[in-house]
């Protein structure tokens, strides 16, 4: 069983970090994993993105042309990646910034008003964790608690321990908002 997600958005929306936390959490949960940052030509067009592949056995290709999920933090990301998502897959859409519906009808679409929810948790920089919380709820690939622990370990290791409560709250917020 192999699951893959492309996390995409504007530079500064924290998509790279969200991917790193997910990859580390998946590894801590005993899965094989690869994390590939947006790189080269894909850096054009206003989107930064990273791809995380998680599997029970060794991951083959770290580059994915049919991801099982997409987290689209802005409209260009949805435009760019919507058609690639595997049939029956999941799209998390930031409905605060994406002013159109997902065109495909063979996907599980979860609309999260990330900017509004960010304001609710008290910091717009935590919207990546809200999105990740939503993704975890929708896919169940890694338990929320593992993601939270991993996030706390990584932030503490990076000397940013004071942001742990905020990000934990953001993960909860996204988890509870997704359905």
């Amino acid at each position, binding site marked *: 069983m192999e699951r893959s997600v492309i996390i995409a958005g504007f530079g500064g929306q924290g998509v790279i970090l969200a991917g790193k936390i997910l990859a580390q959490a998946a*590894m801590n949960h005993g899965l094989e*994993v690869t994390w*590939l940052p947006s*790189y*080269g*030509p894909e850096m054009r067009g206003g989107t930064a993105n990273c791809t995380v592949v998680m599997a029970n056995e060794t991951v*083959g*290709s770290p*580059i994915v042309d*049919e991801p099982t999920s997409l987290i689209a933090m802005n409209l260009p990301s949805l435009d760019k990646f919507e058609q690639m998502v595997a049939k029956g897959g999941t799209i998390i859409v930031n409905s605060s910034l994406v002013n159109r519906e997902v065109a495909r009808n063979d996907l599980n679409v979860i609309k999260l008003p990330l900017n509004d929810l960010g304001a609710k948790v008290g910091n717009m920089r935590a919207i990546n964790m809200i999105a990740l919380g939503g993704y975890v709820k929708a896919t169940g690939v890694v338990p929320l608690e593992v993601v939270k622990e991993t996030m706390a370990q990584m932030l503490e290791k990076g000397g940013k321990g004071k942001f742990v409560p905020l990000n934990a709250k953001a993960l909860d917020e996204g988890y509870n908002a997704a359905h």
Partner: protein
Amino acid sequence: MGEKVLLRGNEVIAEAAIRAGCQCYFAYPITPQAELLEHMAVNMPRLGRTFVQAESELGAINMVYGAASVGVRTMTSSSSPGISLKQEGISYLAGSSLPAVIVNVVRGGPGLGDIAPSQCDYFQATKGGGHGDYHMIVLGPSTVPEAGTLTMLAFDLADKYRTPVMILADGMLGQMMEPVDLPDPIDVASLPKKAWATTGAKGRDPNIILSFDLDPEVLKRMNLELQRRYREIEKNEVRYEEVETGDADIVIAAYGTTARIAKTVIRMARAEGIKLGLFRPITLWPFPYAPLKKLSERVSTVLTVEMSAGQMWEDVRLAVAERAETPFYGEMGGVVPTPRGILREVKKYAH
């Protein structure tokens, strides 16, 4: 083995070099290998070892030449345009029989190219690159953990054969993260002493490191000695991997990141009833001609897939000759072939 950590390929190569006893590292910044340089900048001084950010790639490779002369384990790293600049020094290292490790995190070319992954430096790495009749051992890691184990191996092979060894990675391998069990550090004191090193002529005749002689007969003998060593390397050090080749009708020949992508293609193809396998050279020089030749006797097609216009393809065709079809699929300029893209090509040859 320690605990598993999630690291980028660039960081794993750097850390493996440190654990292999790399005493001196010299390099010049370039994308997409910057994390390697930065890891060394932080960690080498902490361990009391040498890190110098050189004035240029020429400076860096010649600092490597100096450190190698003294007999310590030494490394430089760069990406394609920078590796072109290092060719002079690599030729001198080979000519002077000096062990050193050179990492090329390949990006799109020619010229300035771009910073995206590529395999367009295969010819340069495996066929010489610089001037003169020389080879270096070229190792092509396919995953982040393998980048670590092959870096450790590179130092051993360099010392064993007194030759430069290249790690031929690509931008994707350098940038991506994957869990890795970092290898245990070696005991540097346990390494064999290098009697030839220029450590000061104390109680012995002077040692001289040089790559030249103006007498053609003498230089011929020096060349023959190099060639003798190359034959020995070809005999002892060929490494490769075969995946699901047992019943395969079609085999993909690929190395590095491309080979890894091909492993996913095998799963997809077999789900559709196509008997697909993979032949993955790990040593790009010496190239595994004999095992590929043997494999080609029982398959219909050997499809070479590369992030280049078809460089390793030439070696594949040398090995396969007329025993099987030898089509090619390549992407260039930093475009990475996707599993579905490769599968489409495979299907052209499936009957």
